[in-house]
């Protein structure tokens, strides 16, 4: 039984860069369940597997002497299987059919390269000569003549997509070092041929493509360890122009050689518009080659994650429905993945301040590794089933049944609880989370939160505020794990939860950060006073309204106050127009200040935040700027320019936000009269500080002496004082 596999492996090697074509083709599910896969082996067999059970459901073989020449596909509309053997013979059968010999047979006039089955579009047959027919058209007259579109070229890769109601077939060909791309719409019988821009000393190894907005994005993995992107517009076929072949220019998307480590890619799959998976081997000097599967973020050019495959692979990688299929060692390995919405903060962006507790990273491999299933090649069909392998299969099956209640429970439980009462839901979810930490605990909690937020969205009266707070506070969640949570909290005006999320989530999109800022600034102080928020970041520096001003003397350590006053006196600003500037009290209440501090603390990227900040209403922008100004003054009062307290904003954060806000709201600030004074004060303050520090430098020596003499201050020889120790 090992023989076919070996043959297969040889096959794969001989075929070199041919990717998902002929050797093996897992295909999309024909039946009811989503986790079915149809495997075609180079040879005579096609097997239908249920992935979660790791067991075959059915197997079909062609007669001895015949050979399957392209992957078996399933027609989604009719639930029939379509196979081609000996290049020209088409077979169509149903699930119930056992014997392929008795199945429908049609002999075609040309060699088939591949059949692509599209949901809603029906199967499309691509011939070696480049001709394309839908199956319907082909079956009307199987012997019809198929035109030769290509001459002397060999098809290297093909892919099919739906564009609107139209199936689109794309294939690449090679001839004498030149590569061509063909885009065909069989229903409109339109054909476009392009030539790929040549790359010196490198040629394409693997292709993958996806369609977005009328544009085909073709990704090509080149032998120089780079991925290039080629954009092909899907033209509206209004007029038939026979022009000379267009040359497609390509742009570099990724390069896998970092310093001395090089990823030699063999296979490439596009996962979504921002992610690609590359299977290849990692070569570094003085190190062994290691084969690994990597996921790259093309937007930020970062390696999202990687997984080593120590047993070696065939170099081929397929991907359907968020599952990778690859040959790892001698078995077909299925790996599930999930691509999170990417934000730069998560990729490289500004990390949280070190004060916040370490946030555990959410690498999907950890959570999904347990779900990695191995589908063995053994199928029931095999006549010469060896006892050994049978035992193997059985033992594997038994472990699966043991694990099943564990792994299935989360999804099922959440499904079951969909209609349960609120109380039952919360108690069940608590129980679920209370289980001992398993590797996929994070994912589970993410599901739990999603379940809760879904319910909140369905039922506007339902909002488990404390429960959500508890989850966010005690679990290391991230925004990506529960993307709806903050939106729901914003909707419900749950300021405390938003504060916690801002403080804890490492990957909040700038849009949400802005929404929080706007919500915080828009809240009325009287409303906020009744809300419980964590004031830790504020209490150490904010002036709670206090009768005696003595508290303040303690913090005027560097004595710039005098210099400031003088500066202020020189300018004649009418007093009544600046009701706040003469008393430098905080322009917002402690609750609002704490919430704003949470925003100051969150990670962001200026480029992405700036467009949102431009939308901030003028009044709120000025209030925010006043608060930032207040913080800045407070910071400057301290010799070390740091505010005391836990999670209080740093001077850098304050300055960054101030600059950002001024950038975003520049025109507003220039226009508004009340902003004018704020800005001029700000300007004066900064100027005064610059001057003050330069003066300080000059009199450094004298100051040292003064500090020494400071001890001469009047000393009461005897006094009775009141000392309060709290």
């Amino acid at each position, binding site marked *: 039984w090992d023989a076919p596999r070996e043959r297969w492996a040889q096959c794969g090697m001989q075929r070199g860069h041919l990717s998902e074509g002929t050797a093996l083709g897992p295909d999309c599910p024909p039946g009811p369940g989503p986790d079915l896969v149809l495997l075609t082996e180079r040879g005579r067999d096609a097997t239908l597997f249920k992935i979660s059970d790791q067991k075959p459901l059915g197997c079909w073989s062609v007669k001895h002497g015949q050979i399957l020449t392209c992957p078996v596909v399933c027609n989604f509309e009719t639930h029939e299987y379509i196979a081609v053997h000996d290049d020209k013979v088409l077979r169509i059968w149903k699930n119930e059919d056992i014997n392929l010999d008795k199945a429908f047979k049609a002999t075609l006039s040309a060699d088939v390269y591949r059949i692509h089955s599209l949901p809603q579009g029906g199967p499309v047959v691509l011939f070696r000569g480049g001709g394309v027919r839908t199956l319907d058209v082909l079956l009307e007259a199987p012997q019809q003549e198929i035109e030769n579109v290509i001459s002397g070229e060999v098809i290297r890769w093909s892919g099919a997509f739906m564009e609107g109601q139209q199936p689109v077939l794309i294939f690449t060909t090679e001839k004498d070092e030149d590569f061509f791309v063909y885009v065909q719409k069989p229903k409109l019988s339109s054909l476009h041929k392009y030539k790929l821009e040549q790359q010196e000393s490198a040629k394409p190894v693997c292709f993958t493509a996806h369609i977005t907005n009328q544009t085909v994005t073709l990704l090509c993995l080149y032998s120089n360890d780079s991925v290039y992107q080629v954009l092909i517009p899907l033209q509206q076929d209004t007029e038939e122009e026979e022009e000379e072949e267009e040359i497609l220019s390509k742009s570099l998307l990724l390069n896998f050689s970092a310093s001395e480590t090089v990823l030699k890619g063999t296979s490439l799959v596009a996962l979504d518009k921002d992610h690609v998976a590359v299977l290849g081997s990692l070569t570094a000097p003085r190190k062994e080659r290691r084969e690994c599967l990597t996921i790259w973020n093309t937007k930020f050019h970062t390696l999202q994650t990687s997984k080593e495959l120590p047993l070696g692979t065939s170099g081929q990688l397929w991907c359907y429905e968020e599952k990778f299929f690859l040959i790892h060692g001698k078995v077909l390995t299925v790996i599930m993945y999930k691509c999170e919405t990417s934000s730069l903060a998560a990729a490289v962006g500004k990390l949280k301040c070190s004060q916040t507790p370490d946030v555990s990273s959410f690498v999907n491999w950890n959570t999904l590794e347990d779900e990695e299933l191995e589908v063995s090649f053994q199928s029931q069909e095999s006549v010469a089933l060896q006892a050994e392998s049978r035992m193997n299969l059985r033992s594997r099956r038994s472990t699966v049944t043991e694990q099943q209640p564990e792994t299935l429970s989360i999804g099922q439980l959440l499904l079951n609880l969909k209609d349960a009462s609120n109380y039952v839901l919360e108690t069940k979810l608590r129980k679920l989370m209370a289980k001992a930490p398993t590797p996929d605990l994070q994912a589970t909690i993410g599901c739990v939160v999603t379940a809760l937020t879904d319910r909140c969205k369905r039922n506007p009266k339902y909002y488990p505020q404390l429960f959500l707070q508890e989850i966010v506070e005690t679990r290391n969640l991230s925004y990506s794990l529960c993307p709806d949570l903050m939106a729901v909290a914003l909707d419900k005006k749950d300021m405390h939860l938003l504060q916690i999320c801002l403080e804890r989530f490492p990957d909040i999109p700038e849009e949400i950060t802005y929404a929080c800022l706007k919500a915080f600034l828009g809240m009325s102080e009287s409303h906020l006073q009744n809300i419980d928020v964590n004031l830790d970041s504020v209490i150490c520096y904010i002036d709670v309204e206090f009768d005696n001003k003595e508290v303040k003397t303690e913090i005027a350590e560097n004595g710039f106050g005098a210099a400031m006053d003088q500066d202020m006196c020189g300018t004649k600003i009418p007093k009544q127009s600046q009701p706040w500037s003469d008393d430098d009290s905080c322009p917002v209440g402690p609750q609002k200040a704490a919430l704003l501090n949470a925003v100051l603390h969150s990670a962001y990227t200026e480029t992405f935040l700036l467009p949102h900040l431009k939308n901030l209403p003028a009044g709120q922008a000025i209030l925010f700027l006043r608060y930032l100004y207040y913080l800045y003054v407070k910071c400057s009062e301290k010799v070390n320019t740091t505010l005391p307290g836990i999670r209080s904003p740093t001077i850098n954060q304050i300055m960054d936000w101030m600059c950002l806000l001024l950038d975003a709201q520049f025109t507003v600030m220039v226009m508004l009269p009340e902003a004018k004074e704020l800005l001029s004060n700000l300007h004066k303050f900064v100027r005064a500080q610059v001057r003050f520090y330069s003066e300080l430098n000059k009199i450094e020596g004298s100051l040292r002496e003064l500090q020494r003499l400071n*001890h001469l201050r009047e*000393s009461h020889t005897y006094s009775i*004082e009141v*000392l309060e120790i709290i």
Partner: protein
Amino acid sequence: MGCEPTGSHTELPSPGRVLCLSWHPSGTHIVAGSIDFFRVIDVASGQTVQRIMVNHHVEKAKRECVVWAIALLSSGTVVSADSFGRVQFWDWELGTLAESHTVSTSAALSLAVSEKEDSIIVGTSTGATYQLQLLPVNLGGQEKRWVRTKPFQFHSHDVRAVAHSPTALISGGLDAQLVIRPLMEKMQKKGYDAVLRKFTFPHRRLVSCARKARLLLFQFSQYLELWRLGSTEETGKDGEVLSLCRMPEHLVQLKSKGPEHIYCSCVSPCGTWIGYSTASRFHLYRVRCDGDGVSLRKVPKVPKLLPPAYQLQFSANSDSLFVASARGSVHVFQLLEPGGCKHLHTLQPPSGCSEAVYLLAPSADGHWLAAVSGDWAIHIYNLKCFKHHCMVPAYNCAVSALAIHPSTNNLVIAYSDQQLLEFSIPEKQYTSWSRAVQSRGLHRAWLERDSPITHITFNPKNPAHILLHDTYLLCVLDKSLPLPDDSTLLMNQSTLKQLPETARKRQLHAFKICKKFQPLLFMDLLDENCLVVVERPIMDFKTQLPLPVQQKKFGT
């Protein structure tokens, strides 16, 4: 300064006052410095075997040259520091000068040699100290020579004493400062030991308080002062200064006779007994306050103590006096009315001890006494039967203060590394609170302080409170509150005061620290809501210092 022969078999035949001396490490010879010369004396015979004139090489030496400090190295080299600011190296057997370094234009006053004899620290009268190191002339060569390497200026006045530890240079000056300067090349890592330390006040109690009588006894070098505290009838808010209805009263000044400094002193809790000890004698006085008049009467026939007391402590009910003495012993005296004293017992650790006791703590119920000796062992004695009760588990650090809780009889111990331990005397083990503190660890800011706790007292009305102080802060340690972790603010009192009452609760932690009074010499609790604090402004005694030798002042 001075050094007098203490009557051994080594008689000094010739005139010439000995100003300094040093033993050969093997104990065979003594070198003694005088004015213009030094002598080497053979210990076995008592004979002067060499006499070397130190100003021999100075032409027209008009002034006399005082040898202020001297050291005899194991190689036989004599190192002398003299009033000409020179450090000289002599081969005493040949009587020749090997090397001479003029380190200062003013006198070199003190000298210390490292244990390896490869480094010397010299203190001068300008307040500067210099390090000399024995270094090879050529890299990797055999021939070595003394080189003056590092000058330091940490003092404003005479550096009268220096010491050389393996990792630091220690100097003490007339400016009342003790400076520890770590040798950075000997430091493995940054840390507590790698920082320059300056100490102005001795780490021992100089003030004692008669709680019941509301008296304070201040110990000065040559005299004692007894004061009655003033009082007020007002109350007020935090920070207010209240007007006095009775002024503090200086009751008596007690001058010690002779040149000896007072080593320790104590006033009894009832305020009627005062005891003090000098290097050689112990004195006990009876104080009587009759209306405005104060009478002081010396207690006659005080038992003779040899050697003298290192620490004095009256019992809580003022009927006995504990005297810390040499070799780990504590003498218990019974105080007799109207003014007498008798030796009752001498407590000694069962295993013996070579070091003197330097700290004492009696329990309020008169049952227990804790004594700390120089080997850092804490022995606890049962005073009812005068028996050794137990020993606190050894901890490799000096004890800086200790006290016994009045209601629980828990012994609270502060170590010089800022650790705080609580040991239950009845149960002979650390309390669970103490274990919790140890397992959790104290706040980093607490551990990084460089001034040790010098006094511990308790609040009788709130058993959970422990009051501690060092030179820069006083702290009410509330055992009922959670310990702060490193992320919270340790000194949070000013923060708390700005918060409304309701918001304070979340921020409270066990260490309630007040830094208002600095430098803090003494703190004690008189009653439930009355705390006495003694500050000693540094300027008070800086202004009393004589002018420094050199006054180079630029600008101002």
